[in-house]
């Protein structure tokens, strides 16, 4: 990803991966987690669990430690990205394709330990193996790739019970040839919520991996689970960051512009709860909104509302009693997480970032806070001393306005209610309000933002899509594709979308979800969210399905902005304004397939629609 050298870098909180990115943006806190991971990489040969809550910076820290030690895992298994369904076989396919890639990369394709039927399928040379493995993983879709994928999975299926032993013997072979232990990285385990079917399907694989030097990237809830395969494993916890660390991170992200946002940085850091990605989402949203809002405080409150909606609207709420208890005691008893039948309470609250774990207190007790984004709406009795609230007052004082001059009166229930509304029923926004919110996203090829728009009327949604397509082509030519996504017996929505990604070069993928998706299809999309992180996506979801879908998308929604469309287009778009835009841009059109031609073409469609609606 291209980074600005002195200016603003907001990117939805994608993990940093390159030396340049670390130098520019990484906040090195010299944490215990970092030091222990460095030691482990150098000296240990036992497996280890490395975990933290969503968005706390696990992946970035892992990447940093590998980068800093100038080493890489020998083999990485991306359980959140490289699989196409949630079965055991397909998960094993991730493992074996990566193993065979290692063999191919090291010229070891003729080792005897690999059975002839695998060699027959993969080919005669390392290059042929790489090609076959790419096909098996369906990195580009074709009939032969699909056939190869099926053949490979059938091979695994036929010996499913023996795959653990087969895996172990292959690793041993590599270690013998390498004369040292291999470092394995089980990436993306953190996306799988414990006690779910998809997670259960990975258990045999984890059992096989724990016999080797494996780094498991997990969520905090996994660390407090009591599962057989992880019982003897060391656990490294990445707690939420200090507010000061988030402040430094935000300053780095704003570069030379940080001084202009001193007050807002403090406030955003406090509302991040110590979760860097949450802080970045707030910052990104604030920067987009401050262009449209008449003052910065309004932009800030709107940003809180937006991120609150994106992360928590319709999400499965933990028990109120537990919420009240954590808010009062600032403690969470983590043994609650592994209790059978507890999914409604502690596990859900930690996995979904309702509670944020700050510090280990003693034994199984952790200092915990309610996520500041939602606290206002969940707790009836917020005391004036709450840190975010105190900062809000200070912000009001510093910016020369009375507390009651804020858009939301923080001393009253108004703001609480607004945030609550966002959780229960996100407010509808008109197309220009949506565009305001995403102006830094769809308008740029350099970004890879993902938007969900819930709609009721398909004709209106189509007009809105054309409007957004026009606006996204204002300055840069962006090719759009629009596909209807349905669930069928043959192809899941995820596979259909992956197929679209590989078919042709497209800048913005617009997918309209049709029909009702099964829970399985929704879970699949949720777990494979990293398949989407480098794409510009616009998902059109029928409004009546939004609640059910968002409830299943704890992970996925971290990467999406969610909007509910107010369908009275004429209220937000005027014929005169569109004609004026067309008047300017029409003069710039010199050829087809350019930004200006796409802009004009799409805006004319919107204009026609508006004229029809207005004049009949």
């Amino acid at each position, binding site marked *: 990803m291209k980074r600005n050298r002195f200016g603003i870098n907001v990117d939805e909180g994608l993990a940093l991966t390159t030396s340049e990115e670390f130098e520019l943006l990484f906040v090195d806190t010299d944490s215990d987690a970092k030091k222990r991971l460095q030691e482990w990489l150098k000296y240990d040969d036992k497996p280890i669990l490395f975990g933290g809550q969503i968005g706390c910076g696990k992946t970035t820290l892992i990447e940093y430690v590998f980068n800093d030690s100038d080493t890489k895992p020998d083999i990485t298994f991306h359980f959140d990205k490289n699989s196409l369904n949630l079965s055991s076989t397909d998960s094993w396919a991730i493992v074996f394709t990566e193993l065979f890639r290692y063999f191919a990369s090291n010229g070891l394709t003729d080792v005897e330990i690999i059975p002839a039927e695998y060699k027959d399928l993969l080919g005669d040379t390392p290059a042929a193996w790489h090609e076959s493995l790419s096909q098996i993983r369906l990195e580009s879709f074709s009939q032969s790739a699909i056939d190869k994928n099926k053949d490979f999975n059938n091979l695994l299926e036929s010996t499913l019970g023996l795959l653990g032993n087969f895996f172990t013997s292959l690793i041993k072979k590599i270690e013998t040839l390498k004369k040292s232990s291999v470092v394995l990285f089980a990436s993306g385990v953190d996306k799988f919520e414990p006690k779910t079917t998809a997670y259960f399907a990975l258990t045999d694989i984890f059992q096989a991996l724990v016999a080797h030097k494996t780094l498991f990237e997990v969520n905090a809830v996994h660390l407090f689970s009591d599962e057989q395969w992880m019982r003897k494993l060391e656990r490294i916890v990445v707690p939420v960051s200090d507010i000061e660390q988030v402040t430094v991170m935000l300053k780095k992200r704003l570069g030379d512009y940080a001084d202009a946002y001193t007050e807002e940085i403090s406030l955003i850091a406090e509302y991040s709860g110590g979760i860097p990605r949450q802080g970045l989402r707030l910052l990104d949203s604030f920067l987009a909104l401050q262009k449209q809002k008449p003052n910065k405080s309004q932009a800030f409150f709107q940003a809180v509302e937006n991120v609150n909606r994106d992360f928590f609207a319709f999400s499965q709420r933990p028990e109120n009693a537990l919420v009240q208890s954590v808010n009062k005691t600032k403690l969470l008893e983590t043994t609650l997480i592994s209790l059978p039948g507890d999914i409604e309470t502690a596990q859900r609250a930690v996995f979904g970032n309702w509670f944020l774990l700050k510090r280990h207190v003693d034994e199984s007790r952790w200092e915990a806070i309610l996520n500041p984004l939602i606290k206002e709406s969940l707790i009836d009795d917020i005391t004036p001393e709450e840190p975010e609230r105190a900062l809000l007052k200070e912000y009001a004082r510093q910016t020369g306005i009375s507390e009651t001059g804020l858009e939301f009166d923080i001393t009253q229930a108004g703001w609480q209610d607004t945030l609550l509304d966002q959780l229960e029923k996100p407010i509808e926004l008109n197309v220009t309000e949506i565009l305001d919110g995403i102006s830094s996203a769809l308008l740029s090829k350099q970004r890879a933002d993902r938007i969900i728009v819930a709609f009721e009327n398909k004709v209106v949604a189509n007009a809105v899509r054309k409007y957004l397509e026009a606006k996204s082509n204002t300055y840069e030519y962006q090719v759009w594709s629009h596909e209807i996504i349905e669930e069928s017996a043959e192809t899941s929505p995820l596979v259909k979308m992956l197929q679209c990604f590989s078919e042709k070069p497209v800048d913005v993928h617009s997918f309209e979800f049709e029909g009702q998706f099964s829970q399985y299809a929704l879970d699949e999309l949720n777990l494979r969210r990293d398949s989407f992180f480098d794409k510009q996506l616009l998902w059109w979801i029928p409004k009546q399905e939004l609640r059910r879908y968002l409830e299943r998308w704890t992970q996925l929604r971290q990467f999406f902005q969610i909007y509910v469309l107010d369908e009275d287009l004429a209220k937000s778009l005027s014929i005169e304004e569109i004609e*004026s835009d067309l008047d300017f841009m029409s003069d710039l059109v010199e050829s087809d397939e350019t930004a200006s031609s796409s802009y004009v073409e799409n805006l004319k469609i919107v204009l026609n629609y508006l004229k029809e609606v207005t004049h009949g």
Partner: protein
Amino acid sequence: MDEDVVRAYLWEDIIRLGFSPAGTKKQKNWLFQYGKSLREFWEVSSFPDPPTVSNSFLVATIDSSCATSMSYEYAIENHKKYTVRLIHTPASTDRDIMWMHDMDGTYFSFPNQFFLSNLNHRRTAVQEMNSAIIGNVLDSLIMHPAPHQHIESPLDNHDIRIGGGLLNPFLYLFHLRIQLCPNSDRRSAERDRLILLFEAAIKGNAIIPPGELMRVPSAI
């Protein structure tokens, strides 16, 4: 030839070759390229909205420069009639207009081009120009306009110099592009780039395409 005379010819050439798009279509394209360049030049998170036509004025709001909590709105009727409103956006209240730069061409301004044409020494001036002299002229036009204003409140930034005597709307906008960039290395690299660009353009007496003029320096 007196260096000041050389500078006078270069002054007029720079304005003519870089900042005088002829006809509405070319003016639209210049302004479009200008808006497009700002996100990358300032390294901010979004593009400004594109210009539009309003009552025969070309208008736009440039709200991407967050370094100063300041945005600006321009309205251009022609090369001699335009306004640029500087707007401060405080945290607490609605936008405040700080001031409006208003160029009204119906009033007399010194006819530089008339005298230079009569003197007819352009060829000699071009022969005698060098990078240092072009740099001097660019400083006076763009980087450090001789008459300029600093903002002292609510923000105190002595690096920002808003030129007071710029007659040409496109030049005025271009100078804001540099003045509102918060990074001194970027401003310095831009100065070096413009010297090379205008030296070549003046030698060839060639109009600089706006896309070329708005390019972002690669040095930083």
